[in-house]
């Protein structure tokens, strides 16, 4: 089975080559709903969780994001949900000087985007069950991530205020100005890692409806290793990021484009 070095390939190799390496696609996410809580924490707590190549941004912000994505061409029109925890960080390398959100962990409820995210973008994705956006009787919104029936974490947002087009435009710009920062790492059992470098990924979001608030809470489960195995370590690490002040609660509906064509290694 010959391999064309000009094609993007992934295992299983019998799947063939969906596109050329020189023409990496933009993946449209036509139907997106996001619920997020952003809070300020202690810079030392962030520092302890960042790979050495990154440094804590001026403002030590943690963002807990839930996103519900549907109509995705790369999974035959299907959808998936994600739950990510990211921290504001900076990369100052030899060539690149970038500020964005370093992804501590991204849980998703479908394996295909997990593999693509890990193997192409270096995003540390793992599987979890993720709830829909729940509307409580008191008007609060909630989303939760769990594994094998054990709660990992969730956010609870009191009723939010719908925003006008101008605020939406500004928020849109702010969101798109912050790329995902990650660290691609693929271990080898009998030698040095196969991949071991920082990455950056751009998303172009388009906000069609936006609601904002200034309060909310993040809450954690207490699963043991006997409940969720290695994922226990993730929850323990997230708990080390204390909530000093809630900065922003947010909900939006719109669309996005995952810019695979702009994803790259940071240098």
């Amino acid at each position, binding site marked *: 089975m010959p391999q064309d070095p000009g094609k993007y390939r992934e295992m299983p190799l019998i799947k063939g080559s969906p596109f050329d390496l020189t023409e990496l696609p933009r993946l449209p996410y036509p139907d997106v709903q996001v619920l997020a809580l952003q809070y300020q924490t202690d810079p030392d707590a962030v520092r302890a969780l960042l790979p050495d190549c990154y440094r804590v941004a001026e403002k030590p912000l943690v963002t807990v994001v839930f996103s519900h994505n549907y109509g995705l061409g790369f999974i035959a029109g299907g959808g998936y949900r994600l739950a990510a925890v990211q921290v504001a960080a900076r990369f100052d390398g030899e060539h690149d000087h970038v500020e964005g959100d370093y992804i501590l962990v991204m849980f998703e409820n479908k394996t295909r985007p997990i593999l693509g995210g890990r*193997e192409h973008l270096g995003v540390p994705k793992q599987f979890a069950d993720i709830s829909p956006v729940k509307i409580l009787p008191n008007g609060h919104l909630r989303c939760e991530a769990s594994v094998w029936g054990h709660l990992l974490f969730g956010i609870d947002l009191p009723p939010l205020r719908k925003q006008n087009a101008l605020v939406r435009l500004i928020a849109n710009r702010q969101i798109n100005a912050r790329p995902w920062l990650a660290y691609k790492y693929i271990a080898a*059992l009998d030698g040095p890692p196969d991949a071991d470098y920082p990455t950056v990924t751009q998303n172009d979001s388009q906000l069609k409806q936006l609601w904002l608030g200034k309060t909310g809470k993040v809450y954690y489960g207490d699963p043991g290793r006997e409940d969720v195995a290695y994922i226990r370590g993730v929850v323990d690490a997230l708990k080390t990021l204390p909530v000093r002040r809630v900065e922003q609660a947010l909900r939006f509906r719109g669309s996005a484009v995952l810019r695979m064509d702009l994803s790259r290694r940071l240098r």
Partner: protein
Amino acid sequence: MPIDPTGIHVTPFIMGPVFDRKSLPGLVHADTELLILDYRTDRDAIRPLLHHCYELGEDPTVSVAFAEYGGVDFLAGNRYRHAAVQIAARYEGQEDHLDGAYVLVAFENETMPIIMGREHLGIPKVYGDISPIKTLSNGHLRCEASLWGHLLFGIEAACPSRQTASACQEAGKSFSERPTFGYKFFQSLGGPLDADYPTVSWADFEIEQMWVGAKGRLYLGSPGEEDIGEFKPIIDALRSLPVREVSQTIRARGSMVLRYDTCRRLR
């Protein structure tokens, strides 16, 4: 946060190392049930699907193997199912000279073993829904793999002949001695490939009960790209391996230990 080089990591890093590099474990699958159909195909049909670093095995044999694993230690005792299509192959390298089974594709219904199989072992695992072993009214056994509600493939096997304890022991030894071949392949972000080499892994089987036969059939679904997206070429590739003669059917119960300590790159 420095990355501990003594550990084997699966991102996210905040999860901590999953194994100690100096004492790689055997991954216990305490409760294992297998249903396997082996058939002979055309040598020329195998050649286009086999990575060029491998040679065809002596017999052009395809194994379609379904497994249900329970008591899995790295999943907190949980279960997962597996459906693989593999072909008899030989590796003649500078140092290694081995006969084994090259995995064309392995579907599994749990994400963590998919990630670990891909990133550590170079096995081309992807997600699929996999049925339990079904017993039909005529006593035949069936297992099926599907994706998003669309049948990929299944086997139906008659395994009428219960084997003696010594035959079970021999079979366990035979399964354990036959290595699994993979090809670890990861595209990079802007540079040479992150991983591009053949791999080998072994598992220790203990067979407690076994039934064999020589009648069975393989059947394939006809999902379209609109049903299963980019996975369609996998089914097309499997369809290109005609069944010339069913050589063996096996149902077995026992346990399996995946020998991470012996998994490595082929040279």
